[in-house]
């Protein structure tokens, strides 16, 4: 059933027990994502090294299972990557959800969110945390 494809076990698990959940103290960069249609809010905290590697990333917020899981999985995937690589992964991820593309292996467990393709109204849920990450990484 398409619905179970959307709410896979890994999604439900990450939504109930989000990883890297909580704040990071300054000087970690902080950026917010807000979905006005449902009121969901995600705040992403990123700490980078001088070489622009994401050393640590956390998030806080209240959101639906898809949004929580996507953001939780995202934190696991981008930790240890450079900002450039993280933003590239974001692009791959959004392409994967919105275009007919073969998902690159680099997406890893993010592919569990493929069910969103059949529920386009949930696209914003799946990408909210990613947009917050983008704000964080591109802040001057």
């Amino acid at each position, binding site marked *: 059933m398409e*619905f179970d494809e959307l709410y896979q076990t890994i999604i439900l698990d990450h939504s109930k027990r989000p990883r890297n959940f909580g704040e990071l103290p300054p000087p970690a960069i902080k950026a917010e994502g807000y979905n006005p249609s*449902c*009121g969901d809010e995600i705040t992403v905290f990123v700490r980078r090294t001088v070489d622009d590697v994401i050393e640590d990333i956390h998030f806080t917020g209240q959101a639906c*299972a898809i949004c929580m899981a996507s953001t939780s999985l995202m934190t696991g995937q981008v930790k240890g990557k450079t900002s450039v690589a993280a933003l590239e992964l974001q692009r791959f991820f959004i392409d994967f959800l919105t275009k007919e593309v073969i998902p690159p292996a680099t997406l890893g467990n993010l592919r569990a969110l493929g069910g969103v393709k059949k529920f386009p109204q949930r696209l914003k849920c799946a990408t909210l945390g990613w947009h917050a990450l983008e704000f964080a990484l591109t802040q001057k």
Partner: protein
Amino acid sequence: MEHHANLIPWQMLAQRTGAFLEYLAVTGDEGEIDWSQLETRLRTRPVKILAFTHISNSLGCINPVAEICRVARAAGVTTLVDAAQSTGHAPINVQELECDFLVFSRHKCCGPTGIGVLYGVPSLLEEMSPYQFGGEMISRVTYEFAEWKSGPHRFEAGTPHIAGVIGLATALDYLERIGRTAIQENDHYLGRLAYDRLSGLPGIRLLGPRGERAGLVSFQLNTIHAHDLVAYADQRGIALRGGHHCNQPLMRKLGLQATARASFYFYNTEDEIDRLTEVLQSAVQYFGT
């Protein structure tokens, strides 16, 4: 408990004119408003206009319109009733309610989108200036000046939304044939029934009055996010609405981000309430707690 549609226009008006916008507070999950303070507030503050909803779209409260209008009139305050949620669901008689203005949108009563109604008592409409200009609304035009038609016509500049008006009238006739009182009885019955059935679910937080209520139930179920619940119910043939229901300040006040809402109309049945209850029960299992 106002819908953003009966909130933001007043915010904008206040900004433009320097007027103050004040509220009567909702004090809890049931949507309680202490109407007894209304008279004092209207008499001790320089209130010009009182705008309020007939039925709350997110709580299901039914406000005592005629009584509120009576208190306001005695205090010399103009009233505007937001009947967007009630016109399709209850008999409405502006003469009995004795409101100064009443508004509703047609798409909430089986009609087409993009059209609504503003009712105003003729004496107030005569005092008001047009806010849009064009054809149809004028009586006499020279190179130097223009005069307006009287009554509602001066507010209908340009070619009217003719198709919409015909659709509006047809929808109204349709509702009259079914009978507004019958619709109201069915709505209220299902609203009460749904509230009673759902109140038996462990971990549910129901909003709105326990007693007499409009045909809707709005709730938060355990920690399940409204949009997950809506998607789950949708797959099982139950259409719920999830979100802040254009009621962000109220949601924030109640410490909620969003609720799921089931709303009923003349085509809904008791069986569907049973089905809704079952679906919500199984959702708790699906999403866990």
